[in-house]
């Protein structure tokens, strides 16, 4: 059973609007997660500039020594990214599912202001359900 370590959602200007830790050791504090999110946003933009061929839309998978990072960018520029165990399968599909949940439980919430941090119980609940349904293990939090 592959593990998921954490999930970030960033808005189109690189601000962190949602962060959830699913059991990594040495957890990130709020400031660090904000910094990492905006760092990812800028590196994503730079990777487009460095493309040798036209039509690049930015980094999709980053393979690090101890984790894999999969990133999904929506048409409106919202980016979702997940750190998982190296070689974990089906993360791209999971990201699409998470995006659907975001559309259903966040964007359709009449009290939610777009581009603002997500505080939405139903979203978090369904997120956890979806991750469990896809048979990924999460830490005991």
């Amino acid at each position: 059973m592959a593990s998921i370590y954490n999930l970030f959602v960033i808005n189109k200007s690189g601000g962190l609007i949602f962060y959830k830790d699913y059991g990594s050791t040495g957890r990130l504090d709020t400031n660090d997660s904000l910094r990492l999110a905006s760092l990812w946003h800028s590196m994503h933009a730079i990777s487009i500039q460095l493309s040798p061929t036209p039509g690049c839309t930015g980094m999709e998978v980053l393979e690090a020594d101890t984790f894999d990072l999969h990133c999904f960018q929506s048409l409106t520029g919202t980016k979702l990214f997940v750190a998982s165990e190296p070689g974990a399968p089906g993360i791209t599909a999971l990201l699409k599912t998470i995006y659907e949940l975001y559309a259903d439980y966040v964007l359709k919430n009449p009290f939610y202001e777009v581009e603002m941090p997500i505080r939405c119980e139903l979203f978090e609940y369904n997120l956890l359900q979806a991750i469990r349904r896809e048979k990924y293990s999460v830490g005991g939090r």
Partner: protein
Amino acid sequence: MLQAPGGAVGSSTRMRCMYMFNRQGVCLHYHVWLRPVSVLSRQEDQKLMFGLLFSLKLFTAKMDPVGGSKGQLGAAQLQGQGCSFHSFQTNTYKLSFMETPTGLKIVLVTDSKMSDLREALKYIYSNIYVEYVVKNPLYTPDTPFKCELFNQNLDNYVKTLS
């Protein structure tokens, strides 16, 4: 640098370009196989590439979900310390990265469907760079180089990659 005549077909069409940086960020070697688009001038492009690698390393070192305490984001690290990365993919290209203990960085940009190139990078380092550049008596270490034999052997080797 143009492709060797007759080398246009085969797997070498999957290669895009290669960068080599020393630990100060000076580009020691830049090799192009196929690059229809470059937004920036060559020098700016190399600087941006080094900057991206530098930030990615800081990012992965801080992000590392299994490593325990890691210090602040951007904290200075010794060579080989902390979680690094070996590749990333976009829809148009794949970038493979290797860093040696001396801080030499080798970056290979290929098409996006390329398989794992970690072994290939090691091969390029130890069997091509060390053999034809480092062992060249006229080469001053840590400076940019132009070496015919290196280019030839690199071209021949990348044709075998898939």
